[in-house]
C-alpha cells in the first residue's frame, strides 16, 4: 500500500473526483451516471469537470428511475463497461433493491460463472440540517447480508480515493458508501493513482485497554472518543474496517484478543446491522480463548427525527462513545467527558 503523501491535502469530495477522473482517463469503459451527476452542483463537486472532459456519453444525468437505471447499469456491465451509478441519498437505493440483490449480486453465480458485473454504486448517507426520516439512513447491512456484493465505506480522503479506484477495477458489484459529513473532511492524498485493497481494515490508533470499531462517519467519533479517554488514562485502540464486505474480522479479533473489550459504533441501526455481525463474530472467535466485553452503539432505535432538538440524541457522539467505553473498562463507575470544542462534531449547514 502506498504511504500517504503528507504534503498534499485535499477534501474527500476532491479525492472522489480525482479517483473517478484518473480511472476514466485510464479506461474508456468507465462511465458515470445518476441523477444530477452532470448538473452545476456536480454531486457536491465529486463529478465536477468530468462532463467537459469525457463527454455526455460517459457522464450523464438520468431520469428519476432508480430501478431501471440500476438494471441498465448491470446491462452495461454485462456488455463490458464499468459503470459508476451515483445516488445522492442511500435511502433511494430502496428503489433499486431488486436489481441490486436479485440481479447484480446473483448474476455471476446463477449463470454458472459465465458473466461478471463490474458495477460501482455510490450512495450518500445524510445527517444534520433536518435530513429527517427519509434522507439519513445507513443501510449497508442489507448489502453485507447478501453474497455476491462488496461493500466499502471509506472515512478518509486517502481511503476515499484508493477504495474508489479499487472498486472500479473490481469485477464485482461494489456498494460504495459515503457520508455527507465526511465529504467535508480534508486529508493527505497522493496525486498518483493507487488502490486501497479490499478486505483490509486499518488500525487508526493503537491502544491497550479497549477496541473501538467505528464505521463510516462514526470512525471520526471513535477517534475523538479515543482522545477523551486518553484524558482519563484509558488507552483505546481504534479500528476503521473500511471494507464491510469482505470484512477484515481478523484485525478486529486480534485487537480484542489484546484488549478484551470491544465497542462497535455503527452509522446505522444496531439490530441486524454491521455492529451485530462484528460483535457476533468476535464473540464466536474468542469464546474459547478469553472472556471479553462487548458493547454496540448506533442510531437510536427510532426513525430519524427532523428537529435538531431530537436529532442530536438520535446519533451517538464521541462523548457517548467515550462514556460507554469507560463503563466497560471501569465497570461500576460512570463518567461523561466535558465537551471539548476541538473534538466537536461537524454539522452540515443547509439548505440541504
Amino acid at each position: 500500500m502506498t504511504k500517504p503523501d503528507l504534503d498534499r491535502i485535499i477534501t474527500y469530495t476532491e479525492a472522489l473526483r480525482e479517483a473517478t477522473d484518473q480511472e476514466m482517463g485510464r479506461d474508456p469503459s468507465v462511465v458515470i451516471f445518476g441523477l444530477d451527476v452532470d448538473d452545476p452542483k456536480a454531486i457536491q463537486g465529486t463529478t465536477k469537470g468530468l462532463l467537459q472532459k469525457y463527454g455526455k456519453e460517459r457522464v450523464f444525468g438520468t431520469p428519476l428511475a432508480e430501478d431501471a437505471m440500476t438494471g441498465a447499469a448491470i446491462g452495461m456491465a454485462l456488455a463490458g463497461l464499468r459503470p459508476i451509478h451515483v445516488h445522492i441519498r442511500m435511502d433511494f437505493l430502496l428503489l433499486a433493491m431488486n436489481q441490486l440483490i436479485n440481479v447484480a449480486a446473483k448474476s455471476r453465480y446463477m449463470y454458472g460463472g459465465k458473466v461478471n458485473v463490474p458495477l460501482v454504486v455510490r450512495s450518500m448517507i445524510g445527517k444534520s440540517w433536518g435530513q429527517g426520516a427519509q434522507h439519513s439512513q445507513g443501510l449497508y447491512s442489507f448489502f453485507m447480508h447478501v453474497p455476491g456484493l462488496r461493500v466499502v465505506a471509506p472515512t478518509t480522503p486517502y481511503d476515499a480515493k484508493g477504495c474508489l479506484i479499487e472498486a472500479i477495477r473490481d469485477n464485482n458489484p461494489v456498494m460504495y458508501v459515503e457520508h455527507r459529513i465526511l465529504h467535508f473532511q480534508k486529508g493527505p492524498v497522493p496525486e498518483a493513482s493507487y488502490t486501497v485493497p479490499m478486505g483490509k481494515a486499518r488500525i487508526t490508533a493503537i491502544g491497550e485497554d479497549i477496541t473501538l470499531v467505528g464505521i463510516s462517519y462514526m470512525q471520526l467519533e471513535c477517534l475523538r472518543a479515543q482522545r477523551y479517554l486518553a484524558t482519563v488514562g484509558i488507552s483505546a485502540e481504534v479500528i476503521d474496517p473500511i471494507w464491510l464486505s469482505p470484512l477484515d474480522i481478523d484485525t478486529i479479533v486480534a485487537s480484542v484478543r489484546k484488549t478484551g473489550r470491544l465497542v462497535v459504533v455503527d452509522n446505522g441501526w444496531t439490530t441486524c446491522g454491521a455492529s451485530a455481525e462484528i460483535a457476533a463474530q468476535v464473540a464466536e472467535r474468542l469464546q474459547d480463548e478469553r472472556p471479553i466485553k462487548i458493547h454496540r452503539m448506533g442510531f437510536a432505535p427510532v426513525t430519524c427525527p427532523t428537529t435538531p432538538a431530537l436529532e442530536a440524541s438520535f446519533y451517538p457522539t464521541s462523548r457517548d462513545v467515550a462514556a460507554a467505553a469507560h463503563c466497560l473498562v471501569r465497570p461500576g463507575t460512570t463518567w461523561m467527558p466535558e465537551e471539548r470544542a476541538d473534538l466537536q462534531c461537524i454539522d452540515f449547514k443547509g439548505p440541504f
Partner: protein
Amino acid sequence: MTNESLYQSLYRIRRVEEEIAKVYPTDKIKSPVHLSIGQEAVAVGVCEALETRDIAFGTYRSHALYLAKGGDMKQMIAELYGKDTGAARGKGGSMHLIDLPKGIMGTSAVVGTTIANAVGYAYALKYQRKDAVVVSFMGDGATDEGVFHESLNFAALKALPLIFICENNQYAIHTHQKLRQAQANIWERARAYGMVSERIEHNDVFKVYERVKAAVDALRAGQPGPYFFECMTYRWKEHVGPNEDYNLGYRVRSEAEPWMQDDQVPRIGALLDSSVRQPIEAAIEAEIREAFAFAEASPFPAQSELYTAVYDEA
C-alpha cells in the same frame, strides 16, 4: 370559489413563503425548504375545487398545497422550526406536512411515493362508499418513476375517485424535462392508461380551477375516475432553499420572465377592489406574524419524544 377566495389563498401562500425565505438565513429553520413561489396557482386552483373532506397527498414541495387545502399555518411554521407544536411535532419538518382535519394526508421526501398512497386511499374511499375524492400532487420528475406508471394503471383499472395533478415546472432539481423524457407529453402517457387527461397551460388559476372542478363534480356524481391534469407552471426560486439560482447556468432568467409577468397573485389581486383586497392582505399579514411568533415561542419537543410514536401501541 370567488375572486376573493382565490386571492386570499394565493396571497397567503406567496407571503408565507416570502417570510420563510426572509427568515431562512437566520438558521431558525434548520431543515430544507422547497418553496413553491411562482407555482401557487396550481395548488390554489385545485384546492378551490375541493371540499375539506376531500383528501390531498403531496410532495416535499407542498407549502402551497398545505395552505391552499386549509392547513393550519401556525402548525406549519412551528413544524419548520422543529417545535413540539408543529404539524408533526417537529419530527417531520417542511417535507412531511400533515393536517388530518383538513384532509392533508402527508407529503414525502422520496419522489413519487405519495402517488401510490393516494391511489390506495382512493380505493378505500370507494370501498367505504364515501363521498370524497382524492388528489395526488406530483412533480414532472415524479412521472419518470416506475411508481407513476404502476399507480396510474391500477387507478384506471379500478376507476378510482382520484385526480392526479402533475405540477410540471419542467425541472427536476436542475435537470430539464427534455433531458429526462424523449417527448414532452406527460398527459398523453397518462391518457394511454385509459383516463381523461389534459394539459393546462400557462399556470392559469382559473383554468386549473375550472377543469378540476368539472372533474370533481363528475366524480361526486358517481362517474368513474381517475382524471389526470398536467399543469404547466414554473419555479422562481432555487430547487431547495430561499434564493434564486439563475446564476448556476442550468436555466436562464429569460425563461422565467414570461411566467413572472404572468404572476397570478397580482393578476387576481387586480380583479378586486382595493377595499376588498386590503383587508384580506392585512388579515393574512397578521396571521403570518402570529404564526411566526407562535413558532418562536413554542418549545422544542422534550428529549423523551425521541422514543415516542415509533409504533402505535394502542
